[in-house]
């Protein structure tokens, strides 16, 4: 018994402490260092932060280089699968493009109105620049869903910067280095986004599932019954973490246990991301027109003038929208004229066709009369022997021939 315990102790000691000539450090030393590093990384020390940023810069670049062969294989695989569905997607895209074109004009108007109204409400304007960023590392860890982009604090990226794929939200920055940043994807379990579900106008939180879809959480009880498939999920802007009105995905129902549950299918496919846009927001204070006036003239600084200014601004917006509507109206008028022209052309065609049909009927009647004339003409014609007959060519003659024909029929 004692000898087996001794063996165990010897084995453990040997495993932990024995440092043969080829090893620089014993395992116990390294184990202590790693625990020390964990403790340090949990502390928010400035030195550790800079050290981390340095390591990140080197490791991300190295990872990008090392991943090149695998990325080549991956791209080849993706391209092959894309080619197989190319034509069907092309046809779908054409239809979608037509729909989008028709929505574009009205969207422009709404955006313009929205911007103007936001400026009226706030005393600042947010101008945003979207910078294109390349994804240098996108290893899909089974535990964490994040990507590394090649833009960092040098490009004014901050923690919390929203990241987009086209105009769809894909995540936000959680770690910034000098020339790289880590983006937490919406599909990560630790991601929470306040959203609005349209058209029901329901507020909720979308959390990542660790898979390629999101889950609806923290929805007011009873409201979940109002949810329907294909409802649009977009950011509500609550909490000011994400910009409002950015599309995320659409709702899809699935059977979860005994009840019907909903998941969010993201518009963007996070496994296929190559480039993303980082939205760098700059805040500029607006000197309101009323303030400008106040600087120049104290007399004008009264509520009536302020109201007038607001009304003037509103008028400008309305004029602008009117102009857009007029443009649309002109286009529609031209279309109506074209259609009227086409209608008159078609009417002309119809009347000429009617004439042809009438002529055809007359010809048919004449042909029938001639046939009967050959058969019964001698009975109706006035001759020396037939004094009851009629002179050829008269109406009486014709009616006689036709009546004889009718009697035959």
């Amino acid at each position, binding site marked *: 018994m004692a000898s087996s315990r001794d*063996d*165990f102790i*010897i*084995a*453990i000691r*040997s*495993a*932990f402490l*024995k440092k043969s000539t*080829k*090893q*620089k*450090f*014993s*395992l116990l030393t*390294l*184990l202590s*260092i*790693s*625990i*020390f*590093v*964990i403790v*340090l*990384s*949990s502390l928010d020390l400035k030195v550790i932060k800079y050290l*981390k940023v340095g*390591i*990140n810069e080197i*490791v*991300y670049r*190295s*990872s990008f280089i*090392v*991943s090149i062969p*695998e990325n080549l294989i*991956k791209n080849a*695989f*993706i391209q092959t699968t894309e080619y197989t569905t190319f034509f069907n997607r092309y046809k779908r895209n054409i239809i979608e493009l037509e729909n989008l074109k028709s929505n574009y004009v009205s969207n422009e108007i709404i955006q313009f109105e929205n911007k103007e109204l936001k400026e009226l409400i706030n005393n600042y304007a947010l101008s945003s620049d979207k910078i294109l960023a390349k994804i240098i*590392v996108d*290893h*899909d*860890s*089974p*535990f*964490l869903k*994040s990507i590394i982009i090649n833009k960092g604090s040098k490009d004014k990226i901050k923690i919390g910067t929203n990241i987009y794929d086209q105009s769809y939200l894909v995540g936000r920055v959680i*770690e910034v280095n000098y020339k790289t940043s*880590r983006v937490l994807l919406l599909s990560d*379990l*630790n991601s929470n986004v306040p959203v609005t579900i349209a058209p029901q106008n329901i507020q909720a939180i979308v959390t990542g599932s*660790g*898979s390629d879809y999101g889950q609806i959480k923290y929805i007011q009880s009873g409201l979940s019954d109002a949810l329907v498939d294909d409802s649009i999920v977009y950011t509500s802007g609550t909490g000011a973490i994400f910009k409002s009105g950015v599309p995320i995905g659409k709702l899809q129902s699935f059977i979860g246990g005994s009840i019907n549950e909903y998941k969010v299918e993201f518009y963007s496919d996070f*496994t296929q991301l190559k480039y993303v846009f980082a939205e760098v927001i700059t805040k500029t204070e607006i000197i309101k027109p009323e303030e400008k006036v106040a600087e120049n003239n104290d007399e004008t600084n009264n509520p009536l003038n302020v109201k007038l200014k607001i009304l003037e601004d509103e008028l400008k917006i309305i004029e602008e929208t009117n102009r857009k509507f007029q443009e649309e109206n002109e286009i529609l008028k031209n279309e109506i004229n074209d259609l009227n022209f086409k209608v008159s052309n078609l009417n002309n065609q119809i009347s000429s066709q009617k004439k042809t049909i009438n002529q055809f009927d007359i010809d048919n009647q004449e042909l029938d009369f001639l046939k009967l004339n050959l058969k019964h003409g001698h009975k109706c014609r006035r001759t020396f022997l037939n004094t009851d007959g009629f002179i050829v060519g008269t109406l009486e003659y014709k009616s006689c021939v036709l009546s004889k024909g009718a009697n035959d029929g």
Partner: protein
Amino acid sequence: MMVSLRTKSSFLKIYSWLPILALYISVLNEFDLNYLNLEYFSFNFPFILIFFFTLKDFKHFDYFLVFIAGLFNDTVVGLPLGISSLSYLLICIAAAYIRNITIRPNPVKDWFYFLFIISLINSLNYTVLTLFFSFDLILMSYLVNVFFTFTFYIIFVSIFKYYMRGLND
């Protein structure tokens, strides 16, 4: 003749450092196969590599380099620094321990011992990340990861044995 000998020795040098090279490539590259869209599918290649070469007491398998590889892995995956290093070193300790107590090595015993070790380490990982760092993690992913790592161990071991034979020759 001299040149040929020098080339041979440099090739042998690279060949003998291959396991460490493979470890670094795997931590930097992850070999995630995510484009196959297999839900939950993942396996931990560094675990297999570290366990095998520590078990064989491979002379070019430096623990310090393993520790650094762990730091790299944490950076790439986005885990707090030191977590992977701790896991890798625990594997080294477990493998060194079993090497010391084993008189007649048995591959099947090693295989199941490996399952026990990776289950323990992944449990420790999960606990530390959820309790101390407030990470939300999917337990199922860990279980699947352990299963596939365990399954692939025997395949990779046969490849590593082939490599070792090449080195001895």
